[in-house]
């Protein structure tokens, strides 16, 4: 079960499409591992208020907070603030105060740093890397943002370094005649057309932004490289979260292929909200027990449940056949949707296979302590 998937792992990344219970699953994994003696931090993005408050995250910004829950280890949680992480990153990499203020005060940065394509995804990775470097936890569980494309975040570090290395970036950061020549013939034409099409003086407005950014590129590129390394590290585990619905499964299958192709450490699939039903029932007996009208309603309900269970079984079997030897855990459709510690404990039984109380304390894996 999950505990085996995460043996000797320091980072667990939960990925999947929206609405499949990713935030909840991340929290349940973190709670479960903490219940088994680990010092665990769950990094989540914009959880629903009740889940947040049940985790002690109500009035929290980007700081980790210890969750007040009686477990053998420790459960910490934090909510990610993409804008703030971005600001922190600028502060961290800026060579001097002047550069820092120039970037933070730049209109383009202010207007758009929150909306930067993939910035939330990249910042999630960045924060993860930072926490991992600090080495204060045995395990970090990341709830990835619900991107339009669930895979965006995998590309975010690479896209950032590619852009920093691109000639466009250099030209924009140092726009001179020489710079334009580097880009080849036609670039001057392209720039003037761009000005005509957009009305924005690219060289002036964006140039100023990229110029002030220029001093930090080495640090950021190196950092993006290390974030990529962390994703591929054998101490990392990707857990794919899905529901048995067709659209979610299709995305899960696609995601799985991408992880395998990219050589990233895929651990297994958690399928949430799986309808489960028993075999055929005995209508005559139900009528006898309940009387005709109520028995009819019960029969109808049970019939519907069984049809959904059959659909889920078939859908999941198809996904399973694509996973090869990688495991899948099914979490049944629980009575209420899961949004508090009680609900998380209920999930624990399915994710970990046994109740935490029945397990002895596991020796803690030695935390990695490396200096920045």
């Amino acid at each position, binding site marked *: 079960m999950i505990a085996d998937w995460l043996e000797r792992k320091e980072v667990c990344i939960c990925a999947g*499409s*929206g609405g*499949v219970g990713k*935030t909840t699953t991340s929290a349940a994994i973190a709670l479960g591992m903490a219940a088994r003696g680990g010092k665990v931090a769950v990094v989540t993005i914009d959880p*629903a208020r*009740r*889940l947040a408050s049940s985790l002690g995250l109500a009035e929290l910004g980007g700081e980790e907070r210890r969750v007040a829950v009686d477990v053998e280890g420790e459960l910490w949680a934090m909510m990610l603030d993409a804008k703030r992480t971005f600001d922190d990153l600028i502060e961290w990499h800026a060579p001097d105060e002047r550069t820092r203020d120039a970037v933070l005060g730049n209109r*383009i940065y202010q*207007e758009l*740093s929150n*909306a*930067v*394509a993939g*910035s939330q995804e990249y910042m999630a990775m960045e924060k993860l890397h930072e926490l991992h470097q600090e080495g204060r936890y045995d395990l970090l569980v990341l709830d990835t943002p*619900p991107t*339009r*494309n669930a895979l965006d975040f995998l590309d975010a570090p690479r*896209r950032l370094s590619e*852009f920093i290395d691109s*000639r*466009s970036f250099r*030209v*924009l950061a140092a726009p001179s005649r020489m710079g334009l020549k580097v*880009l080849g013939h036609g670039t001057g*034409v*392209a720039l003037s*057309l*761009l000005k*005509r*099409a*957009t*009305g*924005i003086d690219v060289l002036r407005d*964006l140039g100023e932004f990229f110029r002030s950014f220029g001093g930090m590129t080495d640090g950021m590129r190196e950092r993006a490289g290390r974030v990529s390394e962390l994703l591929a590290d054998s101490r990392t585990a990707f857990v794919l979260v899905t529901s048995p619905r*067709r*659209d979610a499964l299709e995305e899960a299958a696609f995601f799985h292929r991408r992880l395998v192709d990219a050589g990233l450490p895929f651990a297994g699939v958690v399928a949430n909200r799986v309808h489960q*039903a*028993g*075999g*055929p*029932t*005995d209508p005559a007996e*139900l009528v006898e*027990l309940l009387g005709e009208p*109520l028995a009819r*309603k*019960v*029969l109808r*309900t*049970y019939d*519907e*449940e069984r*049809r*959904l269970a*059959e*659909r889920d079984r078939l859908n999941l079997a198809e996904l399973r056949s694509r996973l090869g030897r990688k495991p899948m855990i099914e979490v049944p459709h629980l*009575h*209420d*949707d899961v*949004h508090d510690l009680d609900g998380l404990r209920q999930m624990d039984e399915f994710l970990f296979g046994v109740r935490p109380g029945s397990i002895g304390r596991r020796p803690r894996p030695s935390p990695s302590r490396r200096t920045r």
Partner: protein
Amino acid sequence: MAPLLDRRLIVVTGKGGVGKTTVAAALGLLAARRGHRTVVCEVAEQERLAALFGVAGVGHLERELAPGLHAVSVQPERAKEEWLRHQLKSSTLAGVLGGSRLFQYLTAAAPGLSELVTIGKVWDLAQLDRRTGGTVFDLAIVDAPSTGHGLAMLRAPGTYASVARVGPVSRQAGIIDSFLRDPSSTAVLVVALAEEMPVSETIDFERRLADELGVAVERVVVNGVYPRRFTGEEAERLRSLDGRGSPAARPALRAALAEHERARGQRAQLGRLRRHVQAPVSTLPYLFDPEIGRQQVERLANELERRL
């Protein structure tokens, strides 16, 4: 205020996995039945709409799914090209710029640009005088990204209008921004489920939409609501039988009780939603069909007809 289907654009958003595409399709079908020439736009490059209607991918050009109901899957790259052609009034020049490495790098990195050209394309589809030519529609329905990203998309024109300050981008972004904020042209509809997280996100979205764009949510549609099948008395009766009956009867009793509990949980969430949002709330029934296809969308369109 004009009835919902008499607007030019309906933006359908909501938390991931709540059934936005299905509701957008049902709404489109309903509008088409009433004689509005309608186009439903997908922006996530997933082409779920085509799958719902059992046809191959629709692509960037409008395609008719049912009488009067068209679909289009907006591709940012293509939308960018169309925009360049329109701006430069020349395909040749657009080709020169669009093909330059500088432009490609820049647009790939430019924050929010993809959102801007996407919403720009959606806006164009909702115009009586379309700048890209093509079919004129009475109504465009956009199957928007989930709440957070949906809000970013709605904000993009305003942001660009203020960043660009002057020039054609600023002017056009300003026009799109005003169109989105004008309640006689545009309505924002939020799809939710009667569950904790989607309800919280809907409440939060309504507040942010008002704060950040000054726009009110037109209506909340709660999808997948279970029927109120058992009375409290009947549930009591089922509970009292716990552990009784043969092994064949027990799972049926348990399933009935479980669904009763889920339905009760939903009603509590529905109550919370109604207490905390300003917009009117409509519900759609849970469909127990194994898969959602054209027939199910037709049924939801019937339900919407009764409830809107």
